[in-house]
């Protein structure tokens, strides 16, 4: 790809990632959430991969690590609910802990500090989806140059 596309894609990387993080973190107040924000961040990586096909050093081990990290974080949060009530119980909502405030009805701006376990789960899912979709795109774009005998 030409030089203009390469420079513009690197420049556009930061606003797209920040926008994706905004959608992930406000998932309990506005439409959006973990999955949608994760897809937005993945699209940033796909943009960079399409612009630089082989000239950039993005290894797939990093993405595999973040994907596993997101999934393990999610399932540990789900297990922690067992001590209070049942699996996947929202044990931080309506409490005096970290994320425990409640929102009133009616039109207000909402409060980021509410929602219980949901923003943490959104974060885990966002990391996981971003890493997984970037991994799929990495494989599709780069599979011809891989060593064919080594399946990993």
């Amino acid at each position: 790809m030409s030089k203009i596309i390469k420079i513009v894609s690197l420049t556009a990387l930061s606003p797209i990632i920040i926008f994706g993080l905004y959608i992930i973190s406000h998932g309990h107040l506005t439409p959006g959430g973990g999955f949608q924000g994760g897809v937005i961040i993945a699209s940033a990586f796909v943009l960079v991969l399409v612009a630089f096909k082989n000239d950039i050093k993005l290894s797939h081990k990093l993405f595999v690590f973040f994907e596993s990290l997101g999934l393990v974080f999610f399932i540990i949060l789900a297990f922690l609910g067992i001590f209070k009530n049942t699996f996947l119980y929202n044990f931080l909502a309506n409490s005096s802990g970290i994320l425990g405030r409640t929102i009133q009805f009616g039109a207000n701006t909402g409060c980021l500090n509410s929602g219980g376990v949901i923003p943490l789960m959104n974060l885990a899912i966002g990391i996981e989806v971003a890493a997984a979709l970037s991994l799929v795109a990495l494989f599709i774009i780069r599979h011809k140059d891989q060593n064919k005998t080594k399946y990993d």
Partner: protein
Amino acid sequence: MASNFIILIIAFLFFGAFTIALVHRFGAKFRNSYILSILALINILAVLLYQEVVSKGSLIYTVGAKIPSLYSVQGFPVRIILTADALSGFLVLLFVSIASLVFLYSLQILKEHLSLDKFYILSFLLLAGILGFLITGDFFTLFVFYEINTIATAGLIAFFRNKESLKSSFNYLVVFAIGSLFLLLGVGFLYGKYGALNMVALANNLDFLLLDRIALVFIAAALLLKAGAFPFYFWKPQTYKAMPISAIVLALMSSLAALYVLFKIVFNIFGYNIVLGWTLILFSILSIFVGVFFALKEKSIKRILAYLAISEVGYVILGISAGMMMANSEFGFMAIKGGLFHMVNDVLDISFLFLLVGIIFYISKAKNIFEIRGIGHKYPFLSGLFFFGVLAVAGMPPLNGFASKIIIYESIFHLSPALTILGIMGSILTLAVLIKIFAMIFLGTPSENFRNYKKIPKLAVSTIIIFAIIMLLIGFFPKEFTNSFIDKGASSLINRQDYIH
């Protein structure tokens, strides 16, 4: 904490699947011991779950709240509900033990393959999906686990990345994407009419008008597609040919779990229906005959065994749907018991044959049957085991196939004698197909190079011998087996009032 066992089984399987990718960095031995420890934990949880279900009756578990109240504050019903009764508790225990044996088998047979951690991740996800099928309590969880099964199986089909595996996986995914979208459409019809998705609420409120019948047709078609019964059997042979052997056993269990869900929905929610019953009986007879007739002209052993699996699924559907037709009589209950018993025997027998074929392919590295003709002269032990499996599938007296088939034949004789005659004909043709396979592999003039075969893998053969011992025990003591496990299961299947309460 004590009643969390239902969800802990699936949660620990998911946890194991997610962390294998991290554990894999520390070496193969650590990963193998990690897998075995998670499997041991799952086995213990399955035994505890079954004991609890037997002592306390059906369990209901709500994810996210203490009691399954149907409506939250604003009036929107938002709960995921899991249930376990005697039959699903027993099936969970059975499938978990068979899956543990198959994982032990695969630790030795697939040892030299390079991307083995992905195989274990996919197998754990498939096992979690199968167990989730068995304990689902509302239709949306059913859809989610159906999709988990589809995607995990598609990954396992394309595991050896040769040409026909990739094409088989593509075909499988196209067929099942459409099937699952029709399942979602049927669930959507039910939601639009009644406003609730969990099975107990639908069982209370269902009236059997045109819209419910359309929803039932869509849902039953999607579940029969997963089971591999008559009009939807075409994906099985090419799929089973391309998968690794340990994954074929998991796919078999997935088909039988889908059959269990179909019959749970039909018995408990939609009620007895004459048209549906006779349709299912017709489909089952046609499955039996399709299975044996198309197996006669095939040349690849995995495809022949896949057609035999289709025909055995036909026997299961025949037993249970005939029991549905003779609803309130003694013989109806016996037919249902026969069908469920045959489900257990089917998964044991066909898995035994597949695992044995896997060992033969492992020690000989052959690509098809004709290279290893006459192997019975060098390995008489393996040929003896295969003959044992042939007798079990065909239904010879001291083994388990005979016990379940005789219960099915006796009880459906009272519905219509023609069905018994067709069933016996199918059994004779099954025997013909099996003798053909046995002669193809083990007898005949031996080909040249038997000397550079590997040694027989001890761990894999010992897992197969465990299967054979279980089959012998069930065959010799069928009455004790059915009394302790199957009776409670069958009665919980037809006992509609207890389910609603």
